[in-house]
């Protein structure tokens, strides 16, 4: 029997969706059916609904498919699938916590931060910081403060907001020993440092230096102090402090690398080009015993330092300038928009070398790229 258009259209017009749509509007109708999500994720749709968190640790043997119960700066408590008793892991070893389920705003804010969309991150995380479970609120609040700090590093007028956000987070979550409190203290110090408030920056690190937040963070406090000294261009004092962390066997892979990069930056400040190169080569780039997830960002910074050293030594030598350009490009090739400043600085410095080499097309292209990828960076101003 032929199917006519009229038949089909009538059928369409009488469909449940059409009816619901016409009567109350789809969105209003669906809002009247709450808590369907829970049903949906119970396996009804035929997809796996297993919730699985992940704990990323130093050394690469991550904990996948677990359920994180609590996370403090002392320890992370989790359960293995099918096991009712909790396991504990020292927070000193933990690099990152990933949760399988988190509110959309928190997830979006985290993603925006990862890709350098700071305004988007602030917007999403502001909403997320007041929604959902306490754990989600704490994560969102910490990430919000981080996003504000990075915005503030581009526009100093935002630093006050960042300081306020870190203070608020610490005030709320320090008593609960939240996992991110030590990170927040480092962030607070960085925010004061960016504001030029050196004593406040050091003050923020005090609890870390005292060992209130665990052994790992004593060295963290020292590292923070060294960064403050570096920002003040006190090369010798900063260098000594970086050295003390870098050479401390208790410093983890990540902290050690950061300390060596700070050390090399001091050497750059002292125009010790060859020494800076040796430091980044021996301690970062050619050191295989590092956690790669840390070293990817650190590597970019190391190449940047090496590039600067090459440029500093070049004195107009074309080959040396080409090497500097290559090293800046090596940084740019791996630095993400999430590592905005490293990427922006790499592109900026590559541009300056390209100009010196007379590569005018490249200068133009790098200018456009800088504008597109890091429009608000200080390196684009």
């Amino acid at each position: 029997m032929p199917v006519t258009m009229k038949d089909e259209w009538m059928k369409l017009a009488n469909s449940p969706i059409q009816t619901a749509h016409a009567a109350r509007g789809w969105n209003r109708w669906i809002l009247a059916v709450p808590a369907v999500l829970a049903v949906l994720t119970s396996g009804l749709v035929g997809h796996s609904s297993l919730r699985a968190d992940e704990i990323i640790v130093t050394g690469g043997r991550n904990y996948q498919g677990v359920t994180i119960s609590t996370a403090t700066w002392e320890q992370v408590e989790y359960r293995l699938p099918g096991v009712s008793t909790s396991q504990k892991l020292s927070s000193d070893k933990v690099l990152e916590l990933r949760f399988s389920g988190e509110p959309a705003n928190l997830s979006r804010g985290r993603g925006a931060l990862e890709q350098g969309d700071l305004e988007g991150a602030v917007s999403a995380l502001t909403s997320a910081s007041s929604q959902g479970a306490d754990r989600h609120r704490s994560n969102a609040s910490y990430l919000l403060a981080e996003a504000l700090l990075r915005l503030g590093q581009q526009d100093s007028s935002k630093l006050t907001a960042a300081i306020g956000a870190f203070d608020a987070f610490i005030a709320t979550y320090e008593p609960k020993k939240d996992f991110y409190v030590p990170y927040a203290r480092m962030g607070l110090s960085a925010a004061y440092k960016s504001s030029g408030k050196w004593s406040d920056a050091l003050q923020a690190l005090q609890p870390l230096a005292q060992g209130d937040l665990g052994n790992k963070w004593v060295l963290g406090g020292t590292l923070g102090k060294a960064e403050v000294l570096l920002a003040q261009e006190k090369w010798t004092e900063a260098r000594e402090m970086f050295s003390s962390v870098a050479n401390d066997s208790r410093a983890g892979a990540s902290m050690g690398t950061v300390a060596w990069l700070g050390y090399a930056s001091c050497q750059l400040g002292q125009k010790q080009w060859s020494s800076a190169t040796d430091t980044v080569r021996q301690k970062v780039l050619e050191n295989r015993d590092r956690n790669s997830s840390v070293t990817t960002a650190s590597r970019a910074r190391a190449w940047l330092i090496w590039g600067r050293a090459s440029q500093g030594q070049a004195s107009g030598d074309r080959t040396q300038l080409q090497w500097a350009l290559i090293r800046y490009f090596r940084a740019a090739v791996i630095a993400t928009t999430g590592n905005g400043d490293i990427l922006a600085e790499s592109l900026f410095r590559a541009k300056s070398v390209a100009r010196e080499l007379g590569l005018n097309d490249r200068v133009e292209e790098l200018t456009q790229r800088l504008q597109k990828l890091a429009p608000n960076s200080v390196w684009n101003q």
Partner: protein
Amino acid sequence: MHDRDVDARDGEAGVELMESCNRTGHCHLRGIALLCVSIGMSLLATSGVGAQSLGRGDLTSEEQLLLRELLISYNSPDLARIWIDSRKKTASSSARASLEYYLADAARVEGDIDGYEESIRTLARKYPNHIRSKGAKLEAVLAAMLRLTDANTEAVFATSPADRQGFIEKRDRLWEDEVRRILKDNIRIQNSDVDSIQARVIAEKDSERKGTLAQTLVEKVQIRDLWEFQELSAIQVYCGLLPDESAAKSALFDELALLSKQFVDLRYDNFARRYRAQLIYGKALAASGRPQEAAAELELLVDIEPSGDPPYDPEVIRFIRSMRVESLAGSLAAYNRASMATEALDLLEYLYEEVDPNFPYRTTPEDPEIAPLVAVLDVEEAISRIAGGDRSTGLSLMAQLIQSYDTVENWKADPSSTRETLDRLARGISRLLEMSVGNLTPELYVRAAAGFRDRGQPMKAAEAAKRALGCRNDDKSSRQWKAKALYEIGESCDALGRVEEAAIAYQVLVERFPESDVVAMASQNFFAIVGDLGSDRGGAWAELIPVAEKLFADNSQGLGSEQLKLQQASEAEDRGEYSKARDLFRRIGSKYDNGAGEMTVPFFYRARAGGARCLFRLSTDLEQGTRDAAGEIRALLGDARSDRDVSGESSLRYELGRIYWSDRGKDPSSAIEALKPVLEELSGSSVYREGAILLLHEVFCAEGQLAEAEKSLAEIRKNWSTEHSLVAGTYYLIEACKVSSTVENSRRAGELVLEWIELPGSQFDEIAPAVKLGLASILIDAKFSAEAATMLAEAQQDAEGAGDPVLDIGVAYFLAKAANAAGKHRDALASLDDLIDKYADETYNGAYPDAPFVLVQRATANRGLYEANRDDSRLEMMADDLRSALAILDQRRQSMLFGGEIPPLFERDYWSTWLQYLEVLKARKQCEQVIGLIGSRRLKAGGGTSAFAPESLQPRFDQLEKECQ
């Protein structure tokens, strides 16, 4: 299957094809077949039945179905052609036309769009009443769409910005000139026709004529609707090719929303097309930034069902299901793009809970035609879940999807469909990144990067790939994906024209992930780019070349890398860098892994021969170098023979021969010993055997081993009659025969000249007159008088007006030589007297090459006349001329002696002149002088009875001496 159902479905097939091209960047052949056959089917409105057979007369529906399967399902245009050829013998005239259209379709299935289009045009003229002829214009438009998508694919994969821009311009030009304008013009014409007929129907009073006109109107309306629908489809496809952020895309989507809405509201004739238009409308709204409206419009299609009673035809079920899947995917996508993932989850919730938990009727395994659409739906669902907060379910769904589609079995069974599905998946994942979802696995970032690149956004692709590098996961799988991320960065940078960064990305990959699957390709790319940059810019880039070479050598795999090594080695050798070249030659292995197992490297022995050649070149001690290089080659000869590698053994023997027969020294017997097995023990027509036999032939000729040379030339003639080796080989033998002074060999030289000038490679017609004169000389010596005269006439003609005295002299000289050879000594003498008078100084001073031989030739003329009348004055003239000739030749010979080598041909001419001179002296009874002159020559050669002249002439000197004594 009902007629209308087929009509409905086939009318949309072109759209599916265009969409698939758009999404994947690859128009797979199956899709092309689907397009062409579907257009044919839609115009023919064929009904199908369930079997096939070869028949007579008109084509039956089952025969049409068979053809469709041959072209689409089995993707076998050759089989279709065979069937068509058989069927044409018994076909009616209309069936013959249809079969010829199918032949055109076969061309299209093979990717020959131009050929297809040309055939369609021809057939439309040949069979104006055939139903497909009426749709020929529309088929031309669709062909243009295919060309357009091809251009876009080229743009996506172009590795230089200039190329990319060129392809993009081509794509846009095709769109404007061959699609958009044609569609618009035809739709206007169609609407005008419809209006006109409609007016006539209304005005017509006669009911019978009114009925006929009404029928015509229905047909016109159908065609108009088809054109309008194709316009919607074309815009949708073209929009999909434009970059997401382009203003043109946004404007076109607005227009598409408007047109599709009008179509849905006004064109009722074909329900399937109307559903499709509704789908297009919803998608256009979503793309225009109106997600809620889009979702509402698309939801109208989500649970459509066929009317009528079951059982339903599978085609109808498939169509309905595809509509449901596509519209649901569209709704989810609209919500996702608007950052309303929770709304999308709510919709899914409702459908699964209220309508059917299995909605929209997933099946396992999926119908291959629906599978890509289901994959898109699943991707959108996964996106909704991840972005909506249900991260683990979403990621799990995504993982399941990848796991089920990206399998070795799928790639083997249907690579194009698998690619299409995975490309859709990648594009979907790239959307996830645009929604600010982070904290993903390296794999998802890399797939997203591929999706961005597929969407024509290489910059975003590079940034997405970088995020994979930032992941803290460092397990084996993550490292593989991080390596792929760097490869993706390299490819994207290349597409953006940032070759330096592309090179660096490849370098980072090779240095940090040497265990990766893509390390071989990356090291090759790094090597290739740095090689170019190093030679273009020098400095640091040149300093990087050794690094690239090392990485390349350490990591290269597969035949490609071996070829690259061979190429690099040859380049290094050309630059005289023998040590580097030798190293590269020797790095080429005898086997390579093609992924399925070990394969023989076809140029292994050639590479080793090259290595030995470089060793020979490197050596300063010739003897030691010869021993070492020959030793290396000899050690491989047995292996090459047992491998039955004729090319390999020929290459080795050629190089061995070259070592013994080179500019550094010549050892003919060793060279012959090395090369002879190629002639006698190997067979075949490989280029390497050709080279070795030609070298052997050259040695035979140089050594005067004419009988052997004849054999080698015969082998060359047998296997390479059209190659240049025959030209060269024949020439070598001509020279060899010419050097020999025997009458037989002179004759043979002439024969060979006559053969040589007939060879296409000799380009005799284009050769210089001087060469023709040389050949004519050989022909004269060989007593081919007529041929010599013809050649001289040609040379004379070519030389006329050239104003070259050397040519002028040459022509006169050879004409005289020919006259002498023909016994016309007086003519020869007159001509030579004129010549010598005209160029007296030049002749006696030996200022031109043939000067001494002009004098010799005049002596020959005088000798001929002397023999006729015994006039002693002739002897005196002869003696004068020969003495003058010898003075010039002596001078030249001295110069040659200083140069180190006297060509055998010159030596023959020199001693032959001496012989003539001495014979004249003897005739003039000056025997003492003859004996003295011969004695002094013997003294120079070592005294006693030492031979001084070439072997062929020495006995005559000995005889003369004896006679004079």
